[in-house]
């Protein structure tokens, strides 16, 4: 008995006593976490390393994240080298055989989707932050959310076969709900087809491919590299000539440069969240598109017709 007390006390002191609810899932980004939560429900405990309002390219490899990875049963990441600057260190420092590359607890969500913008021909660093395997911002197309949800459900079923039915039900519910919404969003944004915007970073390719909107130019002429004044003045001229009224940028970007360009071009900056948690009221994966669709409608249709 005395021994038991000692053991309990030791566990409390060491903080190892916490029994987790089911599968412990760690995701690199908040969009993956939101989907995993809907699929896993109460059978999983989900934590995201990056917040929804954080640029996932520039997450710091804090040792505290290594602890998270150390205790995970499943690590889900975006892949396509989005997390290349920090995730390798977290996996190495996490010392968790269950989630290393090749293990069942390691899920590269990019395997579920068809990447856009895989560079053709030679790639080098004069092009800026190029992702040789394709553009990693694929969860900004909700149809990719459907696909990623399916692979997450599949993997959870492998890891916790007892709860396989729950995951299957949750997946059906998630996909049905999202498909319904996608149909509504597509109707609402049909008027946006062929409309032109300027983007700050190569963040929105999947979104515009879904919506049929065209990106006529970028504030960053090379991804991840600040723009030259010459590029910006050419962009302003182009925006004026084509009457482009909106610059779309992620809400974690310092909008100063985009604002300067917008002011001179008679346009406005639309700062959008890129993941759940990115803005107040955006909690679920579907909320993200409610906000994005609403904002695009507001700025591309209503403002233009008011002109």
């Amino acid at each position, binding site marked *: 008995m005395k021994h038991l007390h000692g053991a309990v006390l030791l566990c409390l002191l060491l903080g190892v006593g916490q029994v987790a609810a089911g599968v412990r899932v760690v995701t690199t980004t908040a969009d993956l976490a939101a989907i995993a939560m809907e699929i896993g429900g109460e059978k999983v405990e989900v934590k995201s390393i990056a917040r929804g309002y954080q640029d996932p390219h520039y997450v710091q490899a804090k040792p505290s994240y290594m602890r998270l990875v150390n205790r995970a049963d499943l690590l889900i990441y975006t892949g396509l080298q989005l997390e290349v600057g920090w995730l390798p260190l977290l996996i*190495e420092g996490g010392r968790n055989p269950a989630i290393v590359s090749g293990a069942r607890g390691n899920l590269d969500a990019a395997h579920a989707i068809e990447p856009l913008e895989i560079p053709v021909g030679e790639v080098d660093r004069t092009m800026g932050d190029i992702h040789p395997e394709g553009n990693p911002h694929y969860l900004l197309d909700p149809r990719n959310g459907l696909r990623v949800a399916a692979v997450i459900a599949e993997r959870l079923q492998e890891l916790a076969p007892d709860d396989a039915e729950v995951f299957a039900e949750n997946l059906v519910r998630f996909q049905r709900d999202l498909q319904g919404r996608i149909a509504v969003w597509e109707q609402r944004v049909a008027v946006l087809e062929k409309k032109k915007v300027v983007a700050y970073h190569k963040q929105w390719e999947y979104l515009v491919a879904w919506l049929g909107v065209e990106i006529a130019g970028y504030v960053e002429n090379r991804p991840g590299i600040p723009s030259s004044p010459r590029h910006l003045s050419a962009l302003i001229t182009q925006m004026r000539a084509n009457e482009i009224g909106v610059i779309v940028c992620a809400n974690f970007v310092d909008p100063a440069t985009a604002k300067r360009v917008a002011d001179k071009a008679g346009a406005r900056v639309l700062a959008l969240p890129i993941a759940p948690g990115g803005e107040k009221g955006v909690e679920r994966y579907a909320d993200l598109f409610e906000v994005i669709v609403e904002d695009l409608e507001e700025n591309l249709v209503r403002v233009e017709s008011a002109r």
Partner: protein
Amino acid sequence: MLFISGCFLLMLCLVPASQAQTGGATATGTSRAFNPAISVNGLLLGGFSSAEGMEGHVEEHAEEHDEEHEEHGEEEHEHDHGGIEEGLQVQEVEIQLSSFVDPYLKADLTLAMHGSEGIELEELRVTSLGLPAGLTLTVGKFYAALGKHNQLHTHQFPFVKPPLVNEHLLGGHGLNEVGIDVSWLAPVSWYAELNAQLLNGDSELFAAPDGTDMAYLGHLKNFWELGESTTLELGGSSAFGRNAHGHTTQLVGGDLTFKWRPTRRAIYRSLMFQAEYLYAARDHGDEEEKEGGFYLLGQYQFARRWWLQGQYDLFGLPKEEEERDSRISGLIAFVPSEFSSLRLQYSHSSKEGEDFDELFLQLNFTIGSHPAHRY
């Protein structure tokens, strides 16, 4: 036999398919798919000093130690104190190769060229994969886990030269030894990593006359997230081993690091403060030499591509004030991308009552595989 040749045929059929996927196949049949990740760091340096010549300072130092070395018939360390000279120079080129060996091991190799000739093995780490209980085993040659600065490669140094205390106690290239490292992630409610290292004892500090004498090192690193944007790290190290006199050298160190970086606009502003203390007690038999020192370092990123840094160095505690060395440094860095930086440093040093100034301009670049950034 039939089975084996069958397997072989099957393999022949399978190999081209998998190679086509990775795109690593070449016409000669030599695949690039399993080449290690390779990156190269280069440091180009221009330096000016108001002292007799920096080289002079280095030599002066080397001479002090020479007597010791000759006494014990030991080889002189070639690049004793970082080998910084006046004028233009290639300060260092580092080639890093990294790859998984098999499902059980990972190998990381760092070759360094100091100046424009000669190549040396700076680090070779063979690390275990998938040991249970939060354990990692590393064997090879590596920078000992003594505090913060000693674990940095030259291109990661916050300033052109290492802190005075590291340079004086551990030599210009730090405490770098062949050894074994056992690292343990303790199952506590914060990040606590314990390193126990067995070092071969080839360095200036632990150059025991008997080849079988080892040095032993322990390091504890604690890390807390104070909030979403701020972190605190507290570390302690201790090492001991036999020195060239056949007696014991003991090292003690402590380090404190505070970092702030906003989560939302992470790339525009950040702040870091670090303090590190190191102390050595070297028993020479007839006398015991006790020396220590510290540095205080501040880094402030005030724009996306601009950094300001300051550092105060003091070495020679607990000696008299005239016997101490001190240095105060300021640095401004322009960092156009993750892969290059241009840094201008000014230092004012006071060495045994004599003052001198130094000015450095350094270009730091990385090519090859994308490096992950340690926190």
